[in-house]
């Protein structure tokens, strides 16, 4: 290093130490990431001291880490200093005033999905005073839930009102040391959901972020924590089939689930973020860490995901099967079209005795899409009589796409049984011909075949979601077959 650069660097460092400070009254932060950013976010959210300490520890750890490189997706390097890590929700004045200001292409999609007009406005981020009464709907639901002792609120609110619970569980499933993006999320997460189901309670309705008032602006670093106490049940829906307007490119969310004795958590995701244009320009990077801990005896965690958006999807919803007789499930449909890339799958870590896991993954690649299933099934020594069944099927549409399967299977027991199957093929021309013969257009035929291919996963989704997901797939594949 030359003398000149050295002194410049020294100067820069000195300036950083003394000069820069954060205006805690500001509504948003200038681009950049340092400890003051973390302090600012924590202060803005009125967080307790221990939370700030935790965030700072995570941030310091993040600094020591390097970005992972093993994934089967390619993207230009991300400049973490170039984005802003906090901005208050947009005021009504900044938002589009009516649907006339929204991209017609987006409206067309809403139309095809059959979304009611008022809902379209909400999704597009339009400032409407009474958005289909969502506020009142949400309030009614929350009242009902509160009667049963269920806590369902934003994680910031939970930190203030149920501090002990959050402190007890936050980071116990995905510690901040877990991976690069989890560490970053732990340091700067903006908001997310918190759910606590008390002992013996069966949550009477499907919980969805959709009904949470501030859910639309949870931001790019979302953090979700769901705890199901003994003998409880909850089904949680994340996301929405309609494409969402979003300005953030990197989404690094963390989802933690804890299931106690005999509790069951069902977590369903439908993801349809902006995938970029046909040439792969723009689009969301969806780098998410999702993990559930079956902590109690005979506990049960089930992940279902339908991934149809984002230019890059890179996530592995996982289950740690700690309690004896616990069950983990993973059902996934991942679709990549145009230049989308997906590297997704699951990890099933069997630790308790008689633990069972099922993996069903369906990948669909079209256009130049690259679809990867990557998964780990591990039986630790203690996992006597553990059982796993995995099935990963890929469907290829077009000669320029790719489908890849990387399952890792590790067994340290002599009593465990593992079965893994994978297949890759294209849609049979004979099948399409058969449909066409009977007056079904090639496009509808493909849609039917694809939906049949995905049936095993769709049947795990809550009813309304399943219907929407089917329509969505058909829509996404439009034009994939000439």
């Amino acid at each position, binding site marked *: 290093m030359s003398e000149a650069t050295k002194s410049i660097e020294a100067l820069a460092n000195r300036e950083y130490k003394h000069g820069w400070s954060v205006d805690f009254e500001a509504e948003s932060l200038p681009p950049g990431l340092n400890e003051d950013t973390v302090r600012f976010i924590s202060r803005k959210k009125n967080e307790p001291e221990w939370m700030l300490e935790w965030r700072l520890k995570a941030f310091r750890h993040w600094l020591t880490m390097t970005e992972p490189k093993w994934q089967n997706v390619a993207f230009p390097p991300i400049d973490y200093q170039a984005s802003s890590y906090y901005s208050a929700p947009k005021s009504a004045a900044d938002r589009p005033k009516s649907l006339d200001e929204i991209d017609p292409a987006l409206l067309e999609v809403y139309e095809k999905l059959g979304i009611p007009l008022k809902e379209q406005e909400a999704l597009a981020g339009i400032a409407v005073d009474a958005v289909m009464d969502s506020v009142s709907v949400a309030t009614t639901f929350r009242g009902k839930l509160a009667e049963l002792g269920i806590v369902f609120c934003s994680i910031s609110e939970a930190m203030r009102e149920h501090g002990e619970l959050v402190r007890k569980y936050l980071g116990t499933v995905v510690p901040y040391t877990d991976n690069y993006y989890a560490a970053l999320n732990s340091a700067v997460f903006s908001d997310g959901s918190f759910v606590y189901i008390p002992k013996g309670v069966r949550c009477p309705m499907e919980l969805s972020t959709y009904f949470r008032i501030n859910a639309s602006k949870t931001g790019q670093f979302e953090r979700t924590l769901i705890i199901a106490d003994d003998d409880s049940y909850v089904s949680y829906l994340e996301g929405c089939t309609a494409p969402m307007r979003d300005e953030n490119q990197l989404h690094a969310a963390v989802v933690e689930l804890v299931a106690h004795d005999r509790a069951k958590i069902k977590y369903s995701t439908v993801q349809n973020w902006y995938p970029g244009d046909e040439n792969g320009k723009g689009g969301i990077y969806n780098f998410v860490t999702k993990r559930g801990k079956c902590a109690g005896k005979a506990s049960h965690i089930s992940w279902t995901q339908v991934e149809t958006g984002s230019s890059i999807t890179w996530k592995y919803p996982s289950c740690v099967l700690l309690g004896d007789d616990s069950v983990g499930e993973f059902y996934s449909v991942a679709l990549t079209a145009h230049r989308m890339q997906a590297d997704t799958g699951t990890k099933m870590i069997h630790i308790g005795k008689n633990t069972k896991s099922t993996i069903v993954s369906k990948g669909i690649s079209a256009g130049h899409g690259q679809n990867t299933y990557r998964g780990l099934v591990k039986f630790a020594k203690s996992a006597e009589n553990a059982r796993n069944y995995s099935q990963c099927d890929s469907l290829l549409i077009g000669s320029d796409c*790719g*489908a890849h399967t990387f399952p890792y299977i*590790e*067994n340290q027991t*002599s009593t465990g*049984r593992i079965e893994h199957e994978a297949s890759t093929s294209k849609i049979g021309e004979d099948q399409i011909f058969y449909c066409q013969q009977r007056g079904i257009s090639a496009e509808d035929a493909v849609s039917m075949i694809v939906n049949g291919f995905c049936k095993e996963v769709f049947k795990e989704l809550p009813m309304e979601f399943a219907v929407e997901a089917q329509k969505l797939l058909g829509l996404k594949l439009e034009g994939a077959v000439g």
Partner: protein
Amino acid sequence: MTAAETSLARTGFEALWAAKHERVRGREPSWLLQARENAWALFAERGFPTRADEDWRSTNVAAIANTAYATPSRSLDAKAVQAACASVAVPGSVRVVLVNGRFEPSASDLGAPQHGLTIESLSAVLASGPETLRGHLASQRSTVNAFSALNAALFEDGLRLRVSGRVAIERPIHVIHVTTGPGAFALHPRLVVEVGNGCELELIESFVGAAGVGTAFTNVVQDVRIDDAATLRHVRIVEDAVTAQHVGMTRAAVAKDGRYASVAITRGGALVRNDLYVTLDAPGASCALDGLYALDGSQHADQHTTIEHAAPHCSSTELYRGIVDGKSRGVFYGRIIVRHGALKTSAEQENNNLVLSNEALVDSTPQLEIFADDVQCRHGSTIGQIDEAQTYYLRSRGIGADEARRS
């Protein structure tokens, strides 16, 4: 492992390389010296792989990296070698014996010359007409990891088998690799196999340790070329001594309508790693890879296979089965790549494992990488144990527990 530690671990081989370099400089053609130097540079740069390398995540080679190996002894204990060969003899075959990686005419039995078949020691070819080996040795096609680079830099001898003139060789060629002598020593034999247009050959290889052998580290590389409509059946049996370390790299290229059928059996050795990389280069090429590993004690065997479908209308099947007992660890890694444009590909892969003890371990990693749409690919993998109902059935019919387990 830090860079300093890695370089420390290499020192044993550095001395061997310096001696080798001195010995071959001026005696071997310059292209070969260049190839050796390049390979050494590659090895020096990478060092031995660690478990941080994805390809080596299940296999720790510290035992090899931390051993100071000598060059193998040249003195021949003829009796011990004879006994070792007799233990694996295949009746009716042409017997070619390599002792510590060198062709040993006195132990071999080549029989009457067979039309179209040439069997030569690599050192003899290098001495008489090295140019004919240039295609294999200068291209470095088989130099894909630290071990194959080490072999390319240090190899002394080995064999070249050639079949030409559209003939089917009737008698199988049985190549017996015997290791003998005390202490820790390393050998880097190299095999070049060329099966010409329309020819057929059966090659059986046995790797055995003579009685009283020390810690032998066999680092073998095999270049296999199968021409149009040719067939090679290749059986490879690792029955090394329980102290042995064995690393093998087989690189096979199959041309139009050619077929490569491989059977890889691993029973011996303390640490075994076999890489098998098959490229199906032209339409109609096919391969069948079968394998069996039966392990006990503290054995570790890692089977790595890659099948690359580089052209349309090729097919491959693969079946590997493993039985692990004691504290042994079996690793299967099977990769199938279908390149862009390799349409009408058919690829099937299966790996089944039987775990017999509580301390044995199995890793199975079947992988599919597919860049074309008109393909039929499938893989399956299972890990399980002997079914109690089955043993009960046999025992209820008067068959003892031990015997039931075996049958």
